[in-house]
């Protein structure tokens, strides 16, 4: 349902993604793993066009957009693809001047021009789904990190995106709070939400991902089904990386 074809991303002379192609099936959960600076975050941000690929093709559902070096992309086209996506950030990035429910309603009322009452109804249902129904009118500053991230998940889901993009959704949280977020994302996965996540969190990746893409230095080193890739990586590089993650998680 999502196709990234031959995506290249340059920042000046620095080539961050070198012809990456990934296909993501509807209802699947894909984890992008790999060392820092390997390009997983950039790849994720190329899906909702917070970064514009230098070249390549992006397809989300029915919408397709091709990129060519030096060619400016119309903001109308960016909007068209971006509206198929929702994003969860490492640092939550809730709007601090809006309450939990206002954060969730914002995309519905401002972007989709829903009437307030209908938006409120949907926002309430989503906050309930992420276990935040008791904090509907709370300011973000009064919520724990895990609670903020759950509100952020509800906000991202509000406009019914085709895919939920998660950029290190648990990295800013201590293990206990991370677990709340893992649980919510796991529940969404089991309901068939299509997700792509960049993550260091092996617990997150192994619990909910069914596909894994291992990225290093801007290329896909290995990809495949999560269970087989984690249990039996084909490439030596992947094997070493997964061993390091395991070691960190057990040690820390």
């Amino acid at each position, binding site marked *: 349902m999502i196709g990234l074809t031959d995506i290249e991303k340059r920042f000046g002379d620095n080539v961050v993604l070198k012809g990456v192609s990934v296909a993501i099936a509807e209802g699947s959960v894909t984890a992008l793993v790999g060392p820092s600076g390997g390009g997983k975050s950039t790849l994720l941000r190329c899906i*909702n066009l*917070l970064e514009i690929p230098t070249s390549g093709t992006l397809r989300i559902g029915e919408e397709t957009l091709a990129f060519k070096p030096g060619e400016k992309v119309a*903001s109308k086209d960016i*909007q068209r693809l*971006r*509206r198929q*996506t*929702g*994003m969860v*950030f490492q*640092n*939550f*990035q*809730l*709007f*601090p*001047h*809006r*309450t939990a429910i206002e954060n969730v309603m*914002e*995309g519905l009322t*401002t*972007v*989709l021009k829903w009437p307030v009452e209908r938006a409120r109804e949907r926002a309430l249902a989503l906050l309930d789904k992420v276990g935040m129904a008791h904090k509907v009118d709370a*300011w*973000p*500053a*009064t919520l724990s*990190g895990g609670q*903020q991230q759950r509100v952020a998940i509800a*906000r*991202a889901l*509000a*406009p019914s995106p085709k895919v939920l993009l998660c950029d290190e959704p648990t990295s*800013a949280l201590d293990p206990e709070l991370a677990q709340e977020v893992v649980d919510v994302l796991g529940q969404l996965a089991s309901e068939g939400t299509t997700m792509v996540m960049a993550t260091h969190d092996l617990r997150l990746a192994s619990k909910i991902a069914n596909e894994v893409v291992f990225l290093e230095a801007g290329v896909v080193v290995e990809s495949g089904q999560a269970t087989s890739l984690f249990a039996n990586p084909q490439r030596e590089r992947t094997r070493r990386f997964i061993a390091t993650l395991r070691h960190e998680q057990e040690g820390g």
Partner: protein
Amino acid sequence: MPHWLQLMLESLGPLLWAALVFTTPLTLLSFTFGLIVGLVVALIRLFGPRPLVAVVRFYVWIFRGTPLLVQLFLIFYGLPSVGILLDAFPAALIGFTLNIGAYSSEIIRAVIGSVPKGQWEAAYSIGMTWRQAMRRTILPQAGRVAVPPLSNTFISLVKDTSLAAAITVPEMFQAAQRIVAVTYEPLILYVEAALLYLAMSSVLSALQARLETRLNRYGGFLEARA
């Protein structure tokens, strides 16, 4: 009743009338227009095309770098030489607006820049356009940070309107000067004028405090960005 008190009470009427009819409208109008100019200039400096950026930088350089009194004299007494004749009040209004525009543009530019990039991205990620992100997400947060420095500008402006007396605007300070001219009591009248300016500034400081409390109701937003 002592003489000084009687004189103050007798002149209170004309002074307050001048404050109501000239000082207050001059302050409110030039601050409002000045903020609009400042916002436009700030947006051009942050997001505008390069030639336009050069133009607005030149404007800020001129209006911050020359005395306000000289600017008012140039507009009111200087421009007629090139065929532009303005009444005193509009001349003062233009002068103060451009001056406030230059100073406030720097404040607005700084506070817009102080909103983290992640807030733009969050706004974009739920589908907002640049304008929606600016209006709904960035400006409200920037506005909160801007209240103390813009209040400074506003309070300075209230007092600076007394300079308009020099280009014949019959505002409060000029009203005091006129009474001095017939009573020969400069100390009493100028103390009275000073007290009235102080009262106006105090009201504004109190309003600033109330506004800050209101805007702070959502708590420390630094923590919210963890």
